[in-house]
């Protein structure tokens, strides 16, 4: 097991956001974390990355408590692409992605050939090599999102945590991104956890889906088994129509109107 959350609880002041979450992730898995707004998905991702500390329970990476890891050593294994990253200074896209090599550089303030190669590969994988010399202050929403993802890839982690990576991407780029993440050979077996609102993308690309509601993981398994109309109605309070793709298994979901 590469990542394990056991009895994890977290509250902002006195407002509990994550209750007693248990999640076991094996190396090489790709898991989509879905759920309504405010279900605690992003907070769970921040806990799994070590940015927030659980107030109860523990999270282990490779069998060792996140808090016991040396920060740089952890950052070489685990990278997070946060939602809505803001840019403040005019780094070029290439510089921005290279900065993600920080945990690999050791004591050297300079980048090595390996760092450069990792940055080039990440830019190519996310299809933004042509933007390398552009200032990050001049990017569109979708370009920003791919730059943030490229930086996380350049960090060459074994676990990749992504918060809404497709939120501002158009159809073509959504599919391209999910294809990069969903490929079995993705960067030699990287484990991917992605928070997303898009149940269709999750169903199409993620072999495993964890559904969160009110700070708990209420269902965890194959998307085809989990995505059922009555469950979604209960959790989201929305009436949905569920269809099947030509394979007869993969569901796709269309929201109808509010539940009466």
């Amino acid at each position, binding site marked *: 097991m590469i990542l394990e959350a056991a009895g994890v609880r977290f509250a902002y002041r006195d407002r509990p956001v994550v209750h007693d979450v248990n999640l076991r992730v094996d190396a090489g898995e790709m898991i989509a974390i879905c759920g309504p707004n405010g279900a605690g998905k992003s907070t769970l991702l921040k806990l799994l990355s070590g940015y927030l500390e659980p107030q109860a329970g523990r999270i282990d990476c490779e069998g060792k408590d996140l808090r016991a890891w040396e920060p740089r050593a952890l950052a070489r294994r685990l*990278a*997070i692409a946060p939602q809505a990253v803001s840019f403040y200074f005019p780094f070029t896209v290439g510089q921005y992605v290279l900065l993600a090599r920080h945990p690999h550089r050791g004591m050297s303030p300079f980048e090595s050939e390996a760092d*450069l190669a990792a940055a080039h590969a990440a830019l190519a994988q996310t299809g933004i090599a042509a933007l390398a010399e552009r200032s990050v202050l001049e990017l569109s929403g979708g370009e920003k999102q791919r730059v943030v993802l490229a930086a996380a890839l350049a960090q060459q982690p074994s676990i990749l945590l992504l918060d809404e990576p497709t939120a501002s991407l158009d159809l073509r780029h959504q599919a391209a991104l999910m294809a990069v993440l969903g490929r079995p050979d993705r960067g030699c077996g990287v484990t991917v956890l992605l928070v997303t609102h898009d149940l269709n993308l999750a169903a199409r690309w993620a072999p495993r889906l964890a559904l969160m509601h009110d700070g708990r993981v209420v269902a965890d398994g194959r998307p085809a088994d989990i995505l059922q109309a009555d469950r979604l109605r209960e959790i989201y309070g929305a009436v949905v129509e569920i269809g099947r793709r030509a394979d007869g298994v993969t569901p796709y979901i269309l929201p109808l109107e509010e539940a009466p």
Partner: protein
Amino acid sequence: MTVRALTPARWAATLAPFVLFFAVALTIGPAVGAVTIDPAAAWAHRHDLANNLDASIFFTARLPRVLLAALTGAALALAGATFQALLRNPLAEPFTLGVSSGGAFGAALAIKLGLGATLLGFSPVMFAALAGSAASVALVYWLARSRGAISPTLLVLAGVTVSFFFAAEILLIFYLSDYSETHQMIRWMMGSLDVAFNPEMLRGSLAARLGMGLALAAYVGAMLTLVGLADALNQLSLGAEVAAGRGVNVRRAQRLGYFAASLATGLAVSLAGPIGFVGLIVPHAVRFLVGPDHRVLLPAAVFAGAGFLILCDMAARTFFGPVEIPVGVITATLGGPFFLLLLRRAKGQGAV
């Protein structure tokens, strides 16, 4: 090659023009002034100041000033660049968090109370300014500290509030003072690079040597700490969560950066008064020229800030010589138009 890595060769090549600029300023700074001197003659008589006017002016009147200008300019530019990264706010500068108003309050209070005796070669006004700076730094940190990462918004809000508080107390002291005291206070606030030190003094007094040694050590220590934080500041300038995700100890880096930049600012304010403009504009000008990578930006800002303030002080001493203009007036007068030109160019290149 579309992605350019920072290599030692590129680092050195980017910094070289800034080092050259500083070297030129350092060479002509003490040679130029209201009185024309012969630097060669001054250097030849460097062990015999009493009997040679050139040497006396060069080593006693000008060189200490030029060195103080270099240190002050370097410290303010570096602290400004650091605060801009820490607060993720391009409008931040060394005085944003109230260091200068605390210092000015201390100085005004010392002038009002007429404190006289010197300690380790420094005037009481200097110590009072340093104490005022330290008080405001501690107060702002105490207001903004939290269990995890410090929120930049909270820090700025605390800093601005503390600034307003001290500004009000300064007004109160003004109100209670007579004209000559008020004039002294205002003159202090314009900034000045008049130095109490000269080689004669240093030869004579152990206390003066100790005081200068301490000030220099604190200055250099704070600046080395900041340049050493360049990597962490790069990451922090992208956001606390990004920095943490890349293995930066966010709390430690924030605290170290805040206190080292505050120490550099506090020393600069105590020794030379709140000289404005340098700490805001030099980091921006340098960023336009070399980009936002702090591994290059911070050392470049040190040399640019030092050279810039030496030249400003030279102008202040020379333009209306022998009458001196406060250097704080010159920094914005000379630097403003230059910066506007840079700003236009940067806008054209999309770097803003």
